[in-house]
């Protein structure tokens, strides 16, 4: 069995799963077909609903992959051949020639700047921008290595030019490179090949051939500050600012003519985001959205679409457009559509149109499926083996992750990726850590005392001509040499090269240096490299400082070399001033108890427990009820597979009971939680009211949700037997046979009962539509002559197969659309009879409709489980405004809490269906097991420190700490004639991330951050203002 994993596809799915896998103890080969990892997420401008810059939150992860010694990055490579079986695959990878030696290239870009200006469209910019033959796809590309386009290169094609080889001082250009085969042995394979958004093969109605009709992905590049128009919203034909921008949703999705029968699931949301960002870019622009159903499938997504309308004035039309035509002279667009509200035709005039084109499996999926020997489904996505576990392909040992398996958004993909990592870890459990490299540093650390005279060494980098062309480096070096305490300063071509690392060690030894500074590019990518080098030379890594003279000087002051050089002088002088005051810091080792506590014994909890137990960790499930299974106990049949919920539930419970690593506490309650990551003591009371203390390493919150009961709404009252919620209907369907349907001829289902309101429950709980649609089919099966009427607002059938499932059910009922302004009115026709009158304003027909019905089924949203506040308080984790648990980051950390060691999954986070719940549960287990696998973790030396003498115990620091690392503890202080209870702040260095928020908040200056303390920062400011 091999302790390594092949990950195919370097988008966010592949990145996240690779990072998690290395932490779980596996070597990863990450293969990416294009020259850089990052995938689609790297191309996005912002991400909803936080509107973070997409690349800004992704790039740190990309760099982490690059810097990770246990990930071998194989970019510009493709999988050619795969043989073998789970545990032992033999893989042949084709490495395409870059014509630039990856090991030598330093990413300075000298080759590209001198490459002749023969340009082709840049694929990364969706062909809106241009690139030369020598290029890097985007500035933040990982690896930061250039490549040469053989079709464009004059040297390769015509044997002339070759100027790049002459200017490349790293001698990395190699025109002789040939395609190469790389052979690997791996234990498991993860497919994460993502999606494409082709617009060119759409039918002509969408007008994609016109200059000013762009796909949403192209529009992301237009919006992006690093995009082809520098972040100015300009239209392609004449590069003027469009005033009226129309966004057309479902531009090909849910359309049998376009061959895409499913809903792409993310378009409603990114459209709202793009409209909002557009409004933020230019106030004068007016945004219009042509939509059909609003499908906001995710946490607080629906409210985001409402914000677009209410706060940003984005206007939504509910209609599928007829066609888009161009006005030849102005290149403006005319959108023909029927206004469904008025029944009138309209021509909408827009300056720019953005199409939400279908998201389809990425090109080459079919070939890859053949190579891997796995199956595709009816939509050409990779087929999952089992509805309950979408991560497993049809072949053992090959896993599916992210959009290549079916439509999903970024948080779902990230959760999925962690889940896959957890499952791979269970598969390869017996060999984990066998191929993991841990860096052992053998040189003993030099002792540096605060009284020692600072001896500072400085290395200044030219970065080819990237810095050297704009900053006068030799002059700079001469200046630095003259600064006090600088013992040695030199400049070189590439400070990051391996010979430079040797040189740094040599300098430290020869000059007895006790501080070191490198002035080069960004610490984001390179600081850890230099820190490691210092450590290898025996210098504590916190005695290293880095100055970014590339981004801050040569890049931003390209047109003023003198100012750039002056600024570089200032920055290095300030770093020298700080460096003098640095002291060595200690990193602590934290032992981790290899056990996990799972709160909640529903599907989420049981799945997480099984995953952890299969990885060999002792796991405790604590459940407040007397049975395992949670909400699944009340469900009848699951959709879209139409299997009895109890079958799956019983299977799972059996598996959980049989697992020796799982201990279950039913009818149990948590009393108290003490401690921190790796070292929790959880006090519980078991079913016999006996208190127990459990030693726990990590905690997973899987407390689920419950159905909202719409008291007194739509005749939902105790005395009205035939008005019930969906869950109550489920119970009947499950237990009562069909005799109870006697005398019932017409059933009316009302969707969005008390959901998506202006006030109260404002969110869409995502799962009720699917459940209602399922029950239509079941009712019809029991009694085919039943007439079923569905009153709906929008139908949330966004997942893979759901649209088709809904398409089939549509035949079995009458669907009437209503809106929030005109709620249906239900009245009882007589006191004694179960007969109701329904009056509804049908927005499709724009008319009132009245009919009688015998049974009313209300679809209500899922709400958080009871008493979560108490639990949240004990765990010291937050709830969101709706009362669900709040994750650390809605996009990239959907399963983590900000507090290390506590995770969440399932409906505790947000209402979700069983498939997503299972995916998340595996993900949470994967995340939790990272700590458990490590046995011990190293804390950072950069943490906050309280000076107890100055601390007045006000607690302000505790209230702002995002990581819950601060406790305010009371102690009694004895004075001569009085004893006083005082409060003091205590910072747990295991949890502290050194962000400095507490230090900035402390009114008494009692908190300082190591390596960024007040003296050090003041010294830098003084140096800037007072020295020259």
């Amino acid at each position, binding site marked *: 069995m091999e302790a390594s994993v092949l990950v195919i596809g370097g988008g966010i799915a592949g990145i996240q799963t690779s990072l998690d896998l290395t932490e779980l103890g596996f070597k990863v080969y990450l293969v990416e077909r294009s020259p850089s990892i990052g995938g689609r997420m790297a191309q996005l401008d912002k991400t909803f609903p936080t509107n973070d810059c997409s690349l800004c939150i992704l790039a740190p992860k990309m760099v982490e992959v690059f810097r990770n010694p246990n990930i071998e990055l194989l970019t510009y490579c493709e999988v050619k051949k795969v043989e073998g079986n789970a545990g032992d695959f033999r893989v042949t990878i084709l490495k395409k020639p870059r014509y630039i030696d990856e090991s030598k290239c330093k990413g300075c870009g000298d080759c590209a700047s001198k490459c002749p200006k023969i340009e082709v469209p840049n694929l990364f910019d969706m062909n809106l921008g241009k690139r030369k033959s020598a290029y890097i796809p985007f500035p933040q590309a990982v690896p930061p290595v250039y490549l040469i386009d053989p079709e464009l290169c004059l040297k390769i094609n015509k044997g002339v030019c070759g100027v790049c080889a002459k200017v490349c001082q790293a001698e990395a250009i190699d025109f002789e490179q040939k395609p190469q085969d790389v052979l690997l042995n791996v234990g498991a394979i993860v497919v994460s090949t993502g999606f494409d958004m082709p617009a060119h093969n759409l039918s*002509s*109605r969408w007008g994609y051939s016109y200059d000013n009709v762009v796909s949403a992905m192209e529009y992301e590049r237009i919006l992006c500050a690093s995009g082809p128009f520098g972040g100015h919203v300009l239209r392609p034909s004449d590069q003027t600012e469009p005033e009226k921008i129309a966004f057309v949703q*479902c531009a090909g999705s*849910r*359309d*049998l*003519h*376009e061959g895409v029968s499913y809903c792409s699931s993310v378009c409603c949301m990114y459209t709202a985001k793009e409209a909002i960002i557009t409004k933020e870019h230019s106030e004068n622009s007016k945004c219009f959205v042509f939509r*059909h*159903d609003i499908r906001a499938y995710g946490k607080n997504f629906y409210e985001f679409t409402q914000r677009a309308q209410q706060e940003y004035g984005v206007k939504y039309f509910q*209609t*599928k*457009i*007829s*066609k888009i035509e161009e006005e030849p002279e102005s290149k403006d667009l005319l959108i*023909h*559509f*029927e206004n*469904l509200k008025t*029944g009138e*035709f309209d021509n909408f005039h827009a300056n720019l149109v953005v199409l939400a084109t279908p998201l389809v499996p990425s090109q080459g999926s079919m070939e890859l499926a053949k190579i891997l020997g796995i199956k595709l489904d009816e939509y050409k996505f990779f087929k999952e083996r089992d509805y309950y576990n979408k991560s497993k392909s049809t072949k053992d040992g090959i896993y599916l992750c992210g959009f290549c398996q079916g439509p999903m958004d970024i948080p779902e993909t990230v959760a999925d990726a962690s889940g896959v990592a957890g499952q791979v870890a269970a598969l390869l459990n017996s060999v984990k850590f066998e191929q993991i490299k841990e860096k052992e540093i053998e040189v003993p650390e030099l002792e540096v005392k605060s009284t020692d005279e600072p001896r500072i060494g400085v290395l200044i980098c030219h970065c080819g001509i990237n810095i050297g062309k704009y900053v006068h480096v030799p002059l700079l070096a001469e200046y630095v040499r003259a600064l006090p305490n600088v013992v040695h300063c030199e400049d070189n071509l590439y400070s990051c090269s391996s010979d430079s690392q040797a040189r740094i060690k040599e300098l430290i030894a020869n000059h007895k240096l006790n501080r070191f500074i490198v002035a080069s590019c960004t610490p984001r990518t390179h600081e850890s490299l230099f820190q490691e080098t210092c450590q290898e030379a025996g210098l504590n890594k916190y005695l290293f400082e880095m100055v970014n003279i590339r981004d801050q000087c040569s890049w931003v002051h390209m047109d003023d070399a003198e100012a750039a050089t002056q600024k570089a002088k200032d920055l290095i002088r300030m770093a020298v001033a700080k460096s003098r005051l640095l002291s060595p810091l200690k990193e602590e080792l934290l032992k981790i108890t290899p056990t996990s506590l799972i709160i909640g014994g529903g599907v989420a909890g049981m799945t997480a427990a099984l995953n952890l137990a299969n990885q060999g960790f002792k796991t405790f499930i604590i459940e407040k009820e007397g049975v395992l299974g949670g909400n699944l106990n009340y469900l009848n049949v699951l959709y879209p597979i139409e299997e009895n919920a109890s079958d799956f539930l019983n299977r799972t419970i059996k598996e959980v009971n049989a697992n020796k690593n799982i201990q279950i506490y039913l009818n149990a309650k948590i009393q108290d939680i003490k401690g921190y990551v790796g070292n929790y003591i959880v006090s519980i009371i078991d079913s016999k009211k006996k208190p127990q203390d459990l030693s726990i390493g990590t905690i997973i919150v899987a407390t689920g949700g419950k159905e909202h009961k719409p008291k007194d709404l739509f005749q939902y009252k105790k005395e009205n037997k035939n008005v019930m919620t969906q869950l109550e209907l489920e119970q009947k369907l499950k237990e009562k046979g069909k005799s109870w349907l006697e005398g019932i001829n017409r059933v009316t289902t009302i969707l969005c009962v008390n959901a998506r309101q202006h006030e109260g429950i404002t969110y869409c709980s995502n799962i009720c539509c699917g459940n209602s649609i399922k029950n239509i089919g079941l009712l019809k099966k029991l009694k085919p002559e039943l007439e079923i009427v569905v009153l709906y607002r929008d*139908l949330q059938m966004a997942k893979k197969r759901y649209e088709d499932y809904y*398409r089939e059910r*549509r*035949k*079995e009922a*009458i*669907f*009437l*659309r209503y809106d929030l302004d005109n709620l249906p009115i239900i009245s009882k026709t007589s006191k004694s009879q179960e007969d109701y009158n329904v009056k509804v304003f*049908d927005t*499709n*027909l724009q008319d009132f*409709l009245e009919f009688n019905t015998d049974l009313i089924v209300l679809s209500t949203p899922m709400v958080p489980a009871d008493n979560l506040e108490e639990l949240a308080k004990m765990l010291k984790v937050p709830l969101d405004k709706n009362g669900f648990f709040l994750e650390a980051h809605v996009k990239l950390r959907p399963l983590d809490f900000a507090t290390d060691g506590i995770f969440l999954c399932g409906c505790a986070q947000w209402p979700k269906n069983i498939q997503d719940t299972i995916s998340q549960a595996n993900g949470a287990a994967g995340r939790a097991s990272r700590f458990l696998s490590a046995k011990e973790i190293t804390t950072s030396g950069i943490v906050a420190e309280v000076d107890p003498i100055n601390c007045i115990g006000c607690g302000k620091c505790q209230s702002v700490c995002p990581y819950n690392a601060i406790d305010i503890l009371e102690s009694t202080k004895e004075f001569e004639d009085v004893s006083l209870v005082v409060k003091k702040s205590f910072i747990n260095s295991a949890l502290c991330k050194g962000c400095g928020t507490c230090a900035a908040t402390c009114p008494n200056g009692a908190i300082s951050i190591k390596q960024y303390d007040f003296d050090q920062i003041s010294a830098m400011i003084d140096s800037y203002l007072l020295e020259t």
Partner: protein
Amino acid sequence: MKHCYQCGRCSGVCQLSKVQKYTPSKIIQLILEGFEEKVLNSGVLWDCLTCNQCLKDCPEKINFADIVRIARYKMRHEANQNPEELIAHKGIYTTIAEIMSRPYIEPKRSLKWVPKGCKVTNKGDILYYVGCLPFYEYEFEDPLSIAQNALKIICQIEKKPIIVLEEETCCGHDIYWGQGKLKTFIKLAQKNLEKFEKTGATTIITACAECYRTFKIDYAKLFPNLSSKFQIKHLIEYVYDKWKQKEIQFKKPSKTSKDVEFTYHDPCRLSRFLPEEINLTDKVREIFAALTKLGYTFTEMKHNKSNSLCCGVNSWMNCNEKSKALRYKRMLEAKTAAPILVTSCPKCEIHFECLQNDFEDIAEIQILDFSEFIVDKIEMINPKTEGEKKK
């Protein structure tokens, strides 16, 4: 119909809706909600052009024209509506078809129109189905030219007598789509089939878009083994196949040729009414591409192939000012494209030519049927002479 999710695109693309209020999506929703009777009683479905633009664009592929056809049957038979005043030409042509459907009435049609040099028979291999063209002679300008040229083309290629029936009955298209008279249609179909079988023909060729669709699709629904008995070909298909089989080639325009620049109007029955695999819209364009190489100029109109605009009338229903507006729109598009408008549906040609009497600005456009257009551009490839040339 139950797949309809009320996106409203049909109502947006509907060609009729550009000249009157007409919303298929709402009609569907009304029917689904149980108001079928209301829809039928309103008579609104007599207005539909059955051009099938809505099917072409429906994301759920709902066949609204078929719904209209069935509704017309119900409107006539259940709601007792008789749309006499809506039938153009005082209903004469649908009456003729109806008479022909009677069991003991057999037409004896004059074959005087058969051009000299064309040998016809009543037994053989290939049947040319002329359709209603001879009946039009009394009302329209030279409708027989289509039949004559079509037959000329076939005879020139086949060099053997071609079946043209004296007792040919109407295909029933207008009865079926326009009048909702399903039984009459079935009677006509049975009569035709019997007659075809008697001749021993294996191939049936027609130059009419409506006859072609009717035989190929609607008869096939009634008689499942029809396609194994007969090959049904539109003249376009016939010419295309012969060209691909290298039996014929196309000629260069002469210096005096006046029909060098042309455009093409796709009839709905040859585009939106056929399954994609038949693909006549592309086949005819392949022929035009070959002509373009020889020196002709083919220009597409803005709306073409399955997006082609409607000629404004269907199955002799609703010839009125709204229909004229639609026709006028199409003619203006043609005018910007080329001086000659070629089509392959005799009805389209008749409707366009009729409008030319009303509007001077479009009167100059020459309207030709495919048969009339292509007849003098075809020459035989003689394999022997070819071989000799090579030597």
